[in-house]
């Protein structure tokens, strides 16, 4: 892409894709913004009228709004902490030469390939169920009363499930980063008398910073929209204990058939996601520069 002509040709050839992607993104967004300013309830078709900021007003004053906001952030941060710490630990372990490395690595990736609703159901019915679940059986085996995860710690349980799903992704990205760590650097540090932990903190972790940043940024995008796991397990409850913004939007637009209110919630969620993204880029984006 050196000459003026080839640059122009390049732009021309790219433009259909760019235009398509742009429309793909901008049309739904524009429609959502438009709907968010309408009084638009599916139960009363034909009565759509301009509502100004009413929908936003209702959304913000909804008693579930603040809990949902807090829950969303708790979910995102909780899952990020677990996956990054666990991912680094697993990456370090999997990077060691060992017997059956290939199979172990595939097994580690497996959770990522399970559909969210399926894995949530497995956790709900086979592991965390207070009557039939594996954890309850283990608790009984130890003579303890079984713990009702979804009743007593709904958000923590969901965080656990989502973290389990995303751990493979973090591990995979961190493992590839791990493998590009210069072995000679480690050996030099070893000869200079640096211990294992020192090498981990001062050589491995700085080397992984870029990969950790990628993991955090990508996961945040997806974690802000976690939905299936909540729907399948707690349905946002008990009360609003596990309702996130995404789930709140669903409750309002689907269960209450209020498209206008739901759209307003959607726009709020988009704005929140952007705020989080700006924060993240400010905080850790510099790790992506070379």
């Amino acid at each position, binding site marked *: 892409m050196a000459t003026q002509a080839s640059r122009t040709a390049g732009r021309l050839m790219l433009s259909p894709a760019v235009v398509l992607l742009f429309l793909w993104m901008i049309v739904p967004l524009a429609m959502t913004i438009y709907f968010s300013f309408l009084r638009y309830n599916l139960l009363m078709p034909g009565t759509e009228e301009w509502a100004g900021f009413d929908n936003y007003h209702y959304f913000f004053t909804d008693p579930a709004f603040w809990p949902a906001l807090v829950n969303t952030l708790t979910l995102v941060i909780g899952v990020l902490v677990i996956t990054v710490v666990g991912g680094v630990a697993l990456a370090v372990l999997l990077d060691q030469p060992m017997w059956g490395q290939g199979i172990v690595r595939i097994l580690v990736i497996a959770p990522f390939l399970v559909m969210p609703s399926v894995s949530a159901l497995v956790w709900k019915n086979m592991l965390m169920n207070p009557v039939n679940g594996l954890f309850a059986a283990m608790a009984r085996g130890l003579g303890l009363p079984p713990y009702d995860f979804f009743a007593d710690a709904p958000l923590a349980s969901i965080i656990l499930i989502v973290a389990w799903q995303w751990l493979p992704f973090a591990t995979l990205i961190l493992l590839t980063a791990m493998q590009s760590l210069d072995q000679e650097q480690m050996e*030099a540090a070893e*000869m200079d008398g640096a211990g294992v932990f020192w090498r981990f903190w001062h050589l491995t972790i700085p*080397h992984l910073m870029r990969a950790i940043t990628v993991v955090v940024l990508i996961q945040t995008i997806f974690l802000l929209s976690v939905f299936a796991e909540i729907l399948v397990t707690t349905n946002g409850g008990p009360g609003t204990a596990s309702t996130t913004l995404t789930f709140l939007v669903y409750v309002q637009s689907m269960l209450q058939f209020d498209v206008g209110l739901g759209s307003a919630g959607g726009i709020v969620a988009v704005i929140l996601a952007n705020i989080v993204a700006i924060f993240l880029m400010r905080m850790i984006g510099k790790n992506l520069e070379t």
Partner: protein
Amino acid sequence: MGEIVLSKVMKSFGGVEIIKGIDLTIADGEFVVFVGPSGCGKSTLLRLIAGLEDVTSGTIAIDGRDATDLPPAKRGLAMVFQSYALYPHMSVRKNIAFPLRMAGLPAAEQQRKVEAAAKILNLTPYLERRPGQLSGGQRQRVAIGRAIVREPAAFLFDEPLSNLDAALRVSMRQEISELHQSLKTTMIYVTHDQVEAMTMADKIVVLNAGRIEQVGSPLDLYRSPANLFVAGFIGSPKMNFVEGAEAAKNGAHTLGIRPEHIDVTADGPWSGTVGICEHLGSDTFLKVEVAGVGTINVRAGGEVPLHHGDPIRLTPQPDKFHRFDSAGQAA
């Protein structure tokens, strides 16, 4: 201070013997170069000495102490890696001070030594930079600086100059030689560049397939190679090997003649045709097809007005012949 004695050192990787029994004594203050073809085990041998690999059998003694089972940090050796192995997120100052910090030296003492090393290596203006902001030669000097400050019993270099361009290689080569002159510390230097080996070494160790072929001073190896391998490996262009009638006439199974020991004369005993002709100005390298002898490389001094296809007569210098028996050993 830095005597290193290897006895019967062997190393296998997964059942494959890579180092096949090495006995070698490196005297204190000596500059020893390991040369050999790629894959012969030079790096492995160096890593065994450094303690980065465990020996399969045999012993390594440093300063008269058995160091076979000592961890690398306890051996008192410093290594300079081919990839420099600098710590990328530390400044040059911190990189050089690193081994001192690990040894728990007071900060003032660290700084004094770092400044001194930086001065020797002309790194003072770069002390606050990161390794990523340095050129290859500067990085190499930082790596050497990090080794110097430890005041090790011996320095180990694994092809430290192979990532540098030709001109820089020559100047770094001289810097390392000067460093050796001023520090008088034992240095072990791995290379496959025989010019580096010849110019820097007090003693060259020629390795082949995990064995020592010959140990000696550069000129020893040049003048009296012990076998065909060393004869072919040391010297550039390569020594000519002549077999058959011509060799038998001189009482050898294989006759070795260095290209620089063949003269272009008007009435020489060998007559042939010039093949490839490389005019370098200072020298002219000729590939000559000699009837009844084979292809012979000739190094003629200065400019020689010969070209492809010209007839030529050659006179080998009989007093410079190397004679080898049928087992390839010098006779």
